[in-house]
Each structure stands twice: as C-alpha cells, then as structure tokens.
C-alpha cells in the first residue's frame, strides 16, 4: 500500500463504513485538535470513544474516557491515533490483540510510521497516515469549502443543509482521485528524507 497519496475512493469507503471510532490521545482541552476532531466526528454521527489513561473518570462531550483499547466493551471499527510516530508501534501491538480486529487504523496529520503500518496491514487492517478524518470528511462532503479549501470534488446536486448529528453525503465526483499533486509530492519528499 502506497502511503504517499490516498485515492478519494479509499478514504470515502472508510468514512462511509466505519461507525465506532476509538480515539487514542483524546484531550479534554477544547483548544486541542483531538478535542475538536472528536466533537466533529460525534456530531457527524460516529460512535466516539475517548482513550486517555490520564483522564479516566472524566468525560468528553458526555462520553466517558477509558484507559486503553482493551477496556472497550464493543467492537471498534477504527482507531484514530493522536500520538507521535514514536508511540505508534505499541498501539498497533495492542490493537492486534483485539477480537474482532479493528478495520482501520488512522494516524493523524503529521504522524507517519511505515513499519507500524506494515504490521497492521499484514493483519488485514487498513491504514491511513498523515491525514485528519475531520479534514477528509469536510473535504469529501465539501463542508470544508467554507474555508476556501480545495475540496478536489465536484457536484451538480443540491446539497442538504447540515444539521446537528447528520451524516453528509461523501459521494461527490473526485477531481484527479482527490490528490493535490504538488502537495503530495512535497509530503513524500519530506518523508523520504527522514
């Protein structure tokens, strides 16, 4: 699997099929990206579970923190990791002990660990790295266009007016598979240089 570029079809499939998402490194501080990604995905109808051993006993927008993956009482479709690259491998090892296995492991913007990705992929888990699910959801639904961001999608259909808790259609036509060539190339060069 090439992680320098993801086709929209691949990202769309993931965001359209996962329901339960465990977020490792979720922060109760409302200025941290993990907090507002958590909140956004919850508002878009995902079943969100915050994982942070330092916050057990507290909750994030009404969802109780748990200490680890193994303490979750239901199957997890996706693990979204807000930890830097050095902390990924033990999380993958933990995830591989789950039964059933998660379908997707997603590492946040700026986080990439190719070795850990290979290990997860060998067990049949899909891996996304150096992306943010909130940005990708906003992009594929075109909600992010409010910020002047190039969604790299087109649609001639009337969009619904988004309301709280509503899933948005992600099935717009992708422009060039969803990549921005120059930006993807720069990210690849940066990763290759490491």
């Amino acid at each position, binding site marked *: 699997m090439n992680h320098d570029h993801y*086709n*929209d*079809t691949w990202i769309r499939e993931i965001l359209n099929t996962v329901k339960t998402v465990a977020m490792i490194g979720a922060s109760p501080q*409302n*200025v941290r*990206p993990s*907090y*507002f990604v958590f*909140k*956004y995905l919850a508002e878009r109808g995902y079943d969100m579970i915050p994982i942070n051993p330092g916050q057990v006993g507290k909750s994030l927008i009404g969802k109780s923190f748990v200490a680890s993956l193994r303490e979750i009482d239901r199957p997890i479709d996706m693990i979204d990791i807000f930890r830097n690259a050095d902390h990924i491998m033990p999380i993958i090892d933990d995830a591989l002990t789950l039964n059933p296995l998660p379908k997707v492991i997603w590492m946040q*913007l*700026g986080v990439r660990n190719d070795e850990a990705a290979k290990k997860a992929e060998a067990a049949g888990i899909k891996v996304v790295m*150096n992306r*943010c699910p909130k*940005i990708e959801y*906003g992009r594929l639904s*075109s*909600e*992010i*266009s*409010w*910020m*002047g*961001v*190039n*969604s*790299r999608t*087109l*649609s*001639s*259909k*009337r*969009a*619904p*007016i988004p309301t*709280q808790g509503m899933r948005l259609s992600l099935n717009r*036509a*992708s*422009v*060039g*598979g969803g990549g*921005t*060539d*120059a*930006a993807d*190339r*720069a*990210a690849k060069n*940066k990763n290759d240089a490491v």
Partner: protein
Amino acid sequence: MNDRIPGFATLAVHAGAQPDPTTGARATPIYQTTSFVFNDSDHAASLFGLQSFGNIYTRITNPTTSVLEERVAALEGGTAALATASGHAAQVVAFQQLLRPGDEFIASRKLYGGSINQFTHAFKSFGWNVVWADSDDIASFERAVTPHTKAIFIESIANPGGSITDIEAISAVARQAGVPLIVDNTLATPYLIRPIDHGADIVIHSLTKFLGGHGNSLGGIIVDAGTFDWSKDNKYPMLSEPRPEYHGIKLQETFGNFAFAIACRVLGLRDLGPALSPFNAFMIMTGIETLPLRMQRHCENAKAVAEFLSAHPAVAAVNYAGLTSSPYYTLARKYAPKGAGAVFTFSLKGGYEAGVSLVSNLKLFSHLANVGDTRSLVIHPASTTHSQLDDDAKTRSGAGPDVVRLSIGIEDKEDLIADLEQALSA
C-alpha cells in the same frame, strides 16, 4: 468518474460551486450579508476557536467568496486559497505571515510598478526589507540570499515588459535557501502557466485583471500550494508556534498542507481587514467561467498585433515573448506553450513624443491604467504606472521613456490593427 481528472475548462465552470442548499439556485448566489447566525453559543464558540467549518462574519469568510477561493485553488492546483480586496492587499496579507521587522525578501526587479512601490515604501515602513534581483540572471537571486531572507517573489509573466521568468530555476534557489517561492501569476493566469507545477509554494493574483477579465471589479487572491514545511526550522512562527489569539493553536499542526491559507485568513484578513466584497467575488467568478475562451482569444489577438507592429516602419522594437525574435521565446515555449499572454510593450522610433501622440490618436484602445480587460488598453508606463521610479529603475523594469504598453482585448483583431495603423500614420 472517480479517477477522471476534469479538464481546466470544466474546473473553471464548476470548481467550488454547487446548487444552493436552500433554494436550489444553480448560479452561486451573492450572499450580501455581513454576518451569519449561530445555532447556539457552543456553535459560536467552536467557530470562533477554528474548531468547526462555517461562517461568522464576512471579513473572515463568506459563502460567495469561498466559491471563488476554491475555484482559483482548483485551477492553480493548490490546496486552498484566500481572496482579498485587491492584488495589493493579497501581497500585504501573504507577507505578513512570513516577515517580522528586520526580515528580508528577494524580489525580481521586473515587476508591476505598483508592487515595486509597495515593496520599496510601504513595506519598508513595516521593517520588511526588499532586496532586488534580476530575473534574467538567476545567480543574482543566489547572491541576494542572507540569513534574514524569508521569501522570494517573482512575476510569471512580468508587467509591463511581458518577459517570461524561469520559475523552475528560481524555485531551485528558494529551495536551497529554505524559503518559499511566491509567484504573482496575474498576467499569465493558470490557463497559460501553473506556477505550482514549476515549484511555486504560494501563488498570488490580482483578480482585477484577466481572471475577472471584464475591467469591472477589483480583487486579489493568495493560493497555498501546500508544499512548504513551515515548521522545519522555526523561521515562520505565525505557522509553527502556538497562536495566542487562538488559545495556543499551532496552525501547521492543525491544518496541515493548507495552513498558510488559514494563517492568511485568520491572522491576516481577520486582523488587517481587506476582505473582498461578495458582489465582487460574484463578478470575478462569473468572469472565470469563460477564462479559457477569453485567454485563447487574448493570446491570438496579441500575437497578431505584435506581428503587425514588428513589421511597421515607425516601430523600433516589440517586446512580446510570443515572437520568435524575442529573447524570451524559448522560455515562453516552455512555460506558456498556449500563448505568451496579452500584455506587452513596444517602442517607437520617434521616442517619447511619438508614444504620446500614438496614445492620443487611438480610437478603439482605451488610455487607462489597467490590464486584462475584454477591451484593448494602452498606456505610457514611464509617465504613469512606473512614474515614481527613477530612470534607471524604469528601464530595468521594462518601462523606459520610449515604451508604450498594450493590453490586447478580445475584439476583432483586424479592428485593433486598423486602429493602430491609423494612429501610427496620423
């Protein structure tokens, strides 16, 4: 159609626009409103904290303007864009994210006269120091790099001389220096040149010119290529450091490869204030829908007029990169194979006096200080757009005293040639 890449003309019509959710209106409505209601106070707080997508106030975002922004980002192959009230405003907003007092940037001497003024005088008063280089001499950019250099600025096709800049060569200098390359792509438009494909990190436009294209609305835009790593050596604290005005958010960490466009919006536009009017955004995006058709015609007409002038006995020289005689012809074939643009200069054997009389004898060309209109335009730069420069700087920027600048419109080329012919022989 997932993997089909829509062509340029399709993006020019469709990118960013979708039927209006409320009314089904197919053309993008003009949301002529200052502000937008919040669902509740939590929603308001999350918008103010950059945590949700949505609109607060038209100085920061507007749903009409955002269609224009996404469209230009798509046409340039960037990750995001930010529209401003004018091209000049775009330059101030972009540089504000990069420079602190005492910093330097390198700029080509071959620039629009207004940009030379802005960099020399207004920027100087902010403590932002321009260092000039010659776009025909790549080594002059290398020599200008110092530890204080924070960016390099060039025009793809330079105003007024119509010369073509070797973007790839200068981008290599920028990469070596670890600074972003900013390209003013106003005269080329993405239809003729896409600077990001050649190594630009930021593209700037005066939308006032060919993109709007009808001489009716001012506007500017900044496009983020998403290629520059702002956090690498902490040279760009606006992007890499926690922002006190947003409770410690780090923009690159949060927004990834469109962080520069977000910085321009939430630190630049929000605090400096030069927002584009939604009405202008509507006019400009309507213009962009026909950009490919207009640029084809502009270039075809410009080439015909340039050829006519170069064969005319009263003309001393024509500087149009689309002519085989031009020193920029090879660069034009490489960077702008579809056409060398429609703004160029020529000089008359009769010098300054002959130039002045030509301008007054023209009946179809309008004598005014703009370029990139459907109408053909003429001006004498030395006494107008470039008048504040000294003689040496005038000549070096391609605006010597004997030089006349044309911006060729989309009229019938035979009529343009006939008008020039009668004016030259009057």
